[in-house]
């Protein structure tokens, strides 16, 4: 079944870890969780493909892990707090992972952060829908109304 479209799919460069991805990525995340134990880290490093067979992973998920394609892992249901454990197992700092996911070098990424981070300008929306502040305000109002009715 195709993934249902959500309002947050319009945020560029973002894979929201929602209930659907949580279901889909259970194997990826539990694999990452297993890396909290030293003996598991060693077993994984000794034979990665073999170790991954212990988890219910699709071939795409297995490939994404083996290739350390962190964005693809997120897209297939991985969550960053979990996949960061794979990065740590490889001996990488979190900033290294962030740089990899943004297609940048760690040096450039660190510079960007010191300079105040990535600006939200131009990074709010893929479609232009979320651009108008007034639109999102209007939405806020209606949702708060329905909430106050309930509560």
């Amino acid at each position, binding site marked *: 079944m195709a993934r249902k479209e959500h*309002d*947050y799919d319009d*945020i*560029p*460069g*973002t*894979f*929201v*870890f*929602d*209930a659907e991805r*949580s279901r889909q*990525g*259970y194997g990826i*995340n*539990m694999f*990452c*969780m297993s*890396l*909290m134990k030293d003996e598991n880290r060693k077993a994984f490093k000794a034979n990665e493909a073999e170790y991954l067979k212990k988890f219910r992973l699709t071939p795409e998920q297995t490939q994404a892990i083996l290739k350390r394609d962190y*964005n693809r892992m*997120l897209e297939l249901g991985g*969550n*960053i*707090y*979990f996949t960061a*454990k794979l990065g*740590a197992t490889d001996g990488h700092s*979190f*900033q290294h992972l*962030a740089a990899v*996911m*943004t*297609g940048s070098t760690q040096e450039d*990424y660190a510079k*960007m*952060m*010191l300079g*105040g*981070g*990535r*600006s*939200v300008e131009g*990074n*709010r*929306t893929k479609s232009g829908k*979320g651009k108008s502040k007034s639109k*999102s305000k209007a*939405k*806020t*109002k209606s*949702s*708060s109304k329905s*909430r106050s009715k309930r*509560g």
Partner: protein
Amino acid sequence: MAKIIAGVGSSHVPAIGAALDNGKTEEPYWKRVFSGFEKSKEWMRKTKPDVAIVVYNDHASAFSVDLIPTFALGCAAEFPPADEGWGPRPVPVVKGHPELAAHIAQSVILDEFDLTVVNKMEVDHGLTVPMNLVFGYPKDAWPCPVIPLAVNVVMYPPPTGHRCYMLGRAIRKAVQSYPEDLRVVIFGTGGLSHQISGPRAGLINSKWDKSFLDNLSKDPIKLTKIPHIEYMREAGAEGIEMVMWLIMRGALDDKVDEVYRFYTVPASNTAVGHIILENRKRAAGKRPATGKTKRAAHTARQPVRRSK
């Protein structure tokens, strides 16, 4: 009667914990961050709460994807620091306050908040980093017992800001009906703007953060109406954890005074925000929020005890 006297908002960046644990606090990069909390530590020393309620989120430490409770209240006698992959942080075991925690659980569940009660739990940097920032770095023991309230902000959707605020109000009511004379400080942690996942990682939105901090005292109701999409779009996919600050805010009185604020960018990948809010001192019979008269006789109201 117990009473919530003040709220503390603070980021919980893991790298702050690592900087503390590895003795890097004097490096210029980190000094900029830690210097902003000197006044807070002083405030905390003066305020001397009897108990702290810390609203925080777990980061794949105590909860994996096997179990994802929306609100989980720590009712245990103690909470050991979790091993987050580098060994547990060298901070003291967090002592709980099981009696007050159980009382809060009973009260808020009957107020229709379906909490998960946790009697065994390890706590990660999400809880211990904000504690270090305002309590300092004690070797043997934290200065007061702590009730952890873990909120799911890892899997979407987290509870709405409005729901968080209302839970805060229910916690306030619960605390007020506890018969022992306790002064309680509540922490809201996480944020501020940051995104650490995907190609948009590194996002910071200081303007949005400032408005959020301003409205904690000016117009908290406005904050409760922010939809999740706005948090994620404006403050980053992981910035959505700022909803946890609204539990803290809901637990305070309607009128609060901002007594301290600090904001800096960056710590690692994140905008660091920090605020201290005190309930406004006004009507007679209300005790002031300073530590001076902290155990003054309190006769105004009898505690309301539930028969159930």
